[in-house]
């Protein structure tokens, strides 16, 4: 009996040790190991830095030099400008004031033409310095304020101070456009310009619907190269531009044009097309132009050669008023522009009709469309202040400065928003993976954002632009990285379906044996009935 008893006891202890080892392997080693290995892989991210983006410097420092005839005028103007920009969230002018040197004073009095006066200032000061703007007093001015292509604004006397401030706000620094970058709602300028990108394709398509009836002589390649090329050369620091041109024949579009009598026209009539019909032309153009296959965002420019039987074509507003402009043209935000070139009566009257579109006018219209698309907003009219109309292809110097500031702010804001969204999403959605590469991108974006903000606050806009571009690209790469979806086929809500069939058959007996095991360890008899 005792032999038998000791044998059962030995068996009992063997069994208990066996089940204890099962428990040990499964619960003490297995569970934590399983927990650890099935964790969503996430690199530690600088959440504190991401949440404290608001504390970074928000203002852009700009240099402003006032050159006046006397100290009082300069001081008054300085005070007024400082007051005007006091509330500004964006621009912080660093003003230096000086009295004009006698030599420059005489020179400015002497020359009659404003452009020559700019020349004189250029001789004394360095006007090529970016982000540095000169306010110069010039008594013999026809207007209160004069602004040309260079970084110089003339003002007549202290009476013009208020106008100077307004011109600075609306023309030179474009504060409303800049603050539109940060706002939640989209303003007109933001909805027009293309989002920041490393590069753009600019494609000029010459659309010729009736090649059999009209010969068109237009060197598209040369025009793109000369006009658009010269224009984008100035901006090549900001983006890479690829210029292309193509001809599209036989693109048929039904304008639903109506013949209207017109005594000013050689043929005694013109054809009217309603404005609300024009967006359909974009759709049919897009079909043929095939510019969306390119890897970079594309700006479409289309020169539509109006067939002779529809010439001249005249766009009408929705209230049935004709558009008064040298060229009939329209643009579509973030897409591009279309210019209509109508052949004249003599062009069409020939036995072999031929048409030379006026390259200078056509390209001038395209450039007017291209400027807001690339982020140079249209300047509005300020009474009594004179802005020299643009007569050259290149953008004004201070416009380029403003564009650099705009794009820098845009890229910083976009990168910040992307990272904040990502941080929030990581909290909301548990199965997003953050690999080491994505983590590195995020860290570099955070650092670049901080650096760019500080550079802007110091007024170093070119370096700030470069840094902000890095931040923008790094943030985009991080958010859009394909590896974030690595757990796409392993969603949280389906984990039960995967683990329960796997673990239930093993865990069930192990968990059940726990009670017996505990009792046995405490030295209590496991099977009372057997002993009795």
């Amino acid at each position, binding site marked *: 009996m005792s032999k038998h008893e000791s044998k059962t006891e030995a068996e009992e202890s063997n069994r208990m040790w066996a089940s204890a080892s099962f428990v040990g392997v499964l619960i003490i080693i297995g569970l934590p190991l399983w927990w650890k290995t099935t964790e969503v892989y996430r690199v530690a991210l600088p959440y504190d830095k991401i949440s404290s983006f608001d504390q970074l410097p928000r203002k852009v420092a700009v240099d402003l030099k006032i050159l006046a005839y006397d100290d009082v005028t300069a001081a008054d103007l300085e005070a007024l400008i400082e007051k005007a920009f006091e509330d500004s969230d964006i621009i912080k002018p660093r003003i230096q004031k000086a009295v004009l040197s006698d030599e420059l004073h005489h020179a400015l009095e002497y020359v009659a033409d404003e452009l020559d006066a700019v020349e004189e200032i250029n001789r004394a000061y360095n006007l090529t310095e970016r982000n540095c703007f000169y306010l110069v007093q010039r008594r013999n001015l026809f207007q209160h304020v004069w602004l040309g292509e260079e970084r110089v604004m003339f003002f007549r006397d202290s009476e013009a101070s208020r106008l100077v401030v307004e011109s600075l706000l609306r023309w030179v620094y474009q504060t409303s456009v800049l603050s539109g970058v940060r706002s939640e709602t989209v303003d007109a300028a933001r909805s027009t310009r293309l989002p920041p990108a490393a590069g753009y394709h600019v494609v000029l398509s010459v659309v010729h619907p009736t090649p059999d009836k009209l010969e068109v002589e237009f060197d598209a390649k040369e025009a793109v190269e*000369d*006009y658009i090329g*010269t224009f984008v050369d100035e901006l090549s620091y900001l983006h890479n531009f690829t210029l292309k041109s193509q001809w599209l024949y036989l693109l048929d579009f039904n304008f639903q044009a109506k013949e209207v009598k017109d005594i000013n026209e050689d043929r005694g009539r013109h054809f009217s097309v309603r404005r609300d019909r024009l967006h359909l032309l974009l*759709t049919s153009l*897009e079909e043929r132009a095939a510019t969306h296959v390119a890897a970079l965002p594309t700006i479409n420019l289309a020169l539509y050669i109006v067939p002779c039987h529809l010439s001249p074509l005249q766009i009408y507003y929705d209230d049935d008023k004709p558009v008064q402009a040298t060229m009939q043209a329209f643009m579509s935000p*973030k897409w591009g522009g279309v210019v209509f070139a109508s052949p004249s009566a003599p062009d069409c009257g020939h036995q072999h009709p031929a048409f030379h579109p006026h390259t200078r006018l056509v390209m001038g219209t395209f450039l007017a469309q291209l400027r807001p698309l690339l982020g140079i907003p249209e300047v509005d009219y300020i009474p009594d202040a004179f802005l020299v109309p643009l007569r*050259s292809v290149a953008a004004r110097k201070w416009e380029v400065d403003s564009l650099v500031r705009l794009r820098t702010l845009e890229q910083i804001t976009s990168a910040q928003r992307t990272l904040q969204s990502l941080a929030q999403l990581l909290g909301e959605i548990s199965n997003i993976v953050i690999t080491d590469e994505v983590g590195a991108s995020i860290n570099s974006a955070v650092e670049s954002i901080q650096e760019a903000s500080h550079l802007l606050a110091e007024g170093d806009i070119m370096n700030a632009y470069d840094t902000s571009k890095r931040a923008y690209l790094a943030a985009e790469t991080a958010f*859009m990285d394909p590896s974030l979806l690595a757990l*796409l086929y392993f969603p*949280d809500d389906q984990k039960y379906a995967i683990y329960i069939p796997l673990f239930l058959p093993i865990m069930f007996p192990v968990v059940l044996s726990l009670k017996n095991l505990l009792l046995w360890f405490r030295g209590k008899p496991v099977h009372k009935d057997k002993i009795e």
Partner: protein
Amino acid sequence: MWWLHIGCIFISLSTFTPYSLGVEIPEKFQKSNHTNNWAVLVDTSRFWFNYRHVANVLSIYRSVKRLGIPDSQIILMISDDMACNPRNPRPATIFNNAHEQINVYGDDVEVDYRGYEVSVENFIRLLTGRVPPDTPRSKQLLTDEGSNILIYLTGHGGDGFLKFQDSEEVTSQELADALEQMWQKRRYNEIFFIIDTCQASSMYEKFYSPNILATASSLVGEDSLSHHVDSAIGVYIIDRYTYYVLEFLENVHTNSQKTMTEFLAVCPKSACLSTVGVRRDLFKRDPSKVPITDFFGSVRPVVITTNTIDIMDIPKRKKTEIENRTKVLEKRKYLPQFPMHLVQGSTQ
């Protein structure tokens, strides 16, 4: 047993009752501030007996294209090629009606994702923008903060999932998360979500991102039914919901004044046999004041240019001459294959 697929029951009805809606034009539409329109149209099921799903998705494709969304802004995912299926007695056509009134395949269908490319992964990658780096632009959803997106899904579904390709499914949670990621990245202005499957409304119940208007062909617990069978091809030819949607859309033109409310009421229970579900709590505008063209058309803003720059000097860019010529001194060429130059004299 929520992970089991429950096939829908398809009832064929040889007749349907046409219905009409009292069209009332609202006095003033609520202005939408979208600047472009996109459409994502997905058919998730393969095989010949799912012919009707291809007809469904192509019906919507035809409508949005006719109403002006360009192909570059339509992402079309079709998992099987019914037009070229050997069982199709009318090759290169897909009809949505046994009377063969409308060939929805049309002349130019641009399919962006086809066959086995139509997978949950590609669909979610498309929505979230996390595509592999070498993806062409035509296969990307390049939307921005001003985009209105129409999402149309059709296929076989169940409570909380939509089956892709017989092998995998997207759950409502995954879809809701994908849309939230789009919202956080500012990739849409508004979304109109349509789904035509069984228990379709379960797919939008988990949405939590703002500015989404969703409609589904059936409520949870209901099946979406097909419309009628075409005896020439031997399978059902279109689903009821999409049939009535197409019938409605065929009467919509680019300048139509129809509203979203009319669209949401397009298939009453008497016609659909299932209850059309609508979710409008996430949508900020009043659907009765939203024109249907906000989602189905492409209302692109047009700005007239009047400020031509009068360029004074004709610019000349410093040319970067690219020499395309080869450096071979002597040019050589092939002789014609038939020595015509030898017999030239005799022919003259």
